[in-house]
């Protein structure tokens, strides 16, 4: 089962990459881009029979390794696009 994990910087945390990308886009003339925030995206291929089991495993893995809880929060989705839960 494929689970998708999105890791984003918490809103209060400065994102120099996003800012630099936004600046670059402005320099290229894309003034319609007001702001950019960059995060990480993971696709986990899990050995799980039910969505619940997959969700629990992904949650644990995201919490322990994929996201840095001090500055990041994450969100989990199963492949179908159904939201499974979120936590910050």
């Amino acid at each position, binding site marked *: 089962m494929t689970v998708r994990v999105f890791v984003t*910087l918490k809103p209060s*945390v*400065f*994102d*120099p990459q996003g*800012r*630099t990308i936004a600046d670059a886009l402005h320099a290229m003339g894309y003034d319609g881009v007001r702001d950019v925030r960059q995060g990480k995206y993971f696709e986990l291929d899990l050995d799980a029979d039910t969505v619940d089991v997959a969700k629990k495993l992904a949650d644990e893995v995201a919490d322990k390794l994929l996201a*840095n809880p001090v*500055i990041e929060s994450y969100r989990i989705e199963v492949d179908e696009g159904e939201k499974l839960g979120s936590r910050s």
Partner: protein
Amino acid sequence: MPVIDSKTLEHHGLSREEYEKILEILGREPSLTELGIFSVMWSEHCSYKSSRIHLRTLPTTGACVVQGPGENAGAVDVGDGLVAVFKIESHNHPSFIEPYQGAATGVGGIIRDIFTMGARPIALLNSLRFGPLDDARTRGILEGVIAGIGGYGNSIGIPTIGGEIAFEDSYAANPLVNVFCLGIAKAGTLVMGQASGEGNPVYYVGAKTGRDGIHGATMASAEFDEQSSEKRPAVQVGDPFMEKLLLEACLELMQTDALVGIQDMGAAGLTCSTSEMGARGGTGIDIDVSRIPQRESGMTPYEIMLSESQERMLMVVRHGREVEVERIFKKWDLHAVSIGKVTMDGQLRVREGDAVVAEIPNGKLADEAPLYDRPIETPAYLERLCSLELNALPPLPTTESALRTLLGSVTVSSKRWVYRQYDHMVRTNTVLPAGMGAGVVRLKGTNRALAMSVDGNGRHCYLDPHLGAMLAVAEAARNVACSGALPIAATNCLNFGNPERPEIMWQFTRAVEGIGEACLALELPITGGNVSFYNETDGQAIYPTPVMGVVGVIEDATRVLGRTFPAGESAILLLGSGRGVLGGSEYLKTVCGQVAGSLADLSLESERALQRLLVELAAAGLIQSAHDCSDGGLAVALAECCFDTGSMGAELMMPDGGGEGRADAIDASILFGEAPSRVLVSVTDSDFGVVRARAEAAGVPIAAQGRSGGDRIRISIAGRLLLDMSVVDAEVAWRQGLERFFADRAA
């Protein structure tokens, strides 16, 4: 008017007496913004209120000193019309909370301190302390810290050319991250952090201000406890790209004479930079916070003044030169914003639009923080620890297995896994790279090179802070001298526990005395430094850890020496005298599992003679390599001279042994005992006689002789072979000591 109650004061880390002093200075109740400003400026971190009276005793003058303590960094004359600007800073607390960003912003901060002075930063060093690596969390902290140091330094393009790392239980919940930076400027071009000239505009340039790090300085001035994670300010995120632009733009601006003064916004941000620049210039500064570029909406003046967002600079510019200044920053895609002006009334006046939200005399804020002579008491643990009964030690395993254990211990083992992550070659000046001894960079356009080393030993200082601190000074200077450079000046970073505890304050004062004595004797003026108190968690303090940074000059960069024996056979001499002692040694800790005993004594006179001799021999091209005996004693030092040579061996013969007590304990102290003022050098056969004669003339004894060659490491005493080990085996243990803890070791 908000009522300032005791809870508000506690939240700001201000005592009742300190509040009384604020009332006296202002002649009225402070506003909350003003209280916030006082609280950060009078925090331990910014005001040095517990340490200042002791730091005053340190030697700070000398013929080479161009700028002593008090500015953003110290500076010394290094010849050929150049000055070296350098300093060391701690970023311990932030690195524990978020290792990558904490360490990265630590590097960013010290680099700003250097280029603020008008110097181009050319080298970085770091001194690190962690808990034992069998703990996964500690491994995570270490990986984050190393990646953060590399991530920032590599990106901005300043080589990290050396450092040191040690591991002890006491750092598990309080890792230490001390970063040293050195820059170069032409003599007479240093820029000061001073505001002067009535009506001169005050500029802000760099990253926008966010809510990050509010109360960072206050955080660094309190212990950790269970609630700390709740009190966490938003973590500061480093932006090395922004800093690179700032660095280049500021250096370009400094080529003009449009700049009056400049200071980076480090701890306590805008508050500290405005009040210190005003205080140094004896002027007032009038700024409008609504003009400050802001990253988040709805920030209050309180938040703006206390923010510790990274990569920001404050400048005072000559009136009439604004266009020129703005043009230079614009070239680097930076936006310099005028936020106020210099006044003559000595006040820090903060407005929000037309409303004045704070008005405090700069001088009182920056220079008249309360000073404390805190009570001192000898710690109870000392008596228990200082006696060491050698005959009660566990028996020495075979000398070979003891050496293998020591070489494979994380503190002694190769640090390649670490420095491979640092760009140590960018700028093409690195003559002696990380891993070979002191860091050495040449100065292009001259024949000279600068050597630098950071050293400290918390375990030593725990057992004897006075002697331990002296040993740290001696070792840092000795490492510099081993490269062939004459040590000329020092900086220090003093990492201690809670100064409100009399035993900690005792450690601190003893260490400061030790540093002062050693620096005086070795003629090393201290041009600046940093104090980091409150390194404790739940009442458990770190080992007292003063870290010394020493800078030296080598006149002929082609004469730089490293630790490794040269190819082909050569003669070896152990310069210096004195048997190592096991008290406080790496052997005692790693092999016997004990931290106890008395340290070997240090004769500053012998140390000085040894260092001068090394510099003289190196300059004359009479020695081929030099390496001091440090952690792990003589056997480890000899082994280290053999590593990275393609596994060439060496043999060393000592004239006599002897001593009272159990035979195996005596053998252990000969091989693994630690003592200062001992250096292994290699010499060609034809120079052997001259070197002996020079040593004798300098009053430096020769404790042992030997030869390099073969493929074994051998040490014998009075004809008895004490150690006989294959270099390849020893080198494998040394290489894997640290790497084995990390998954990418195979890469």
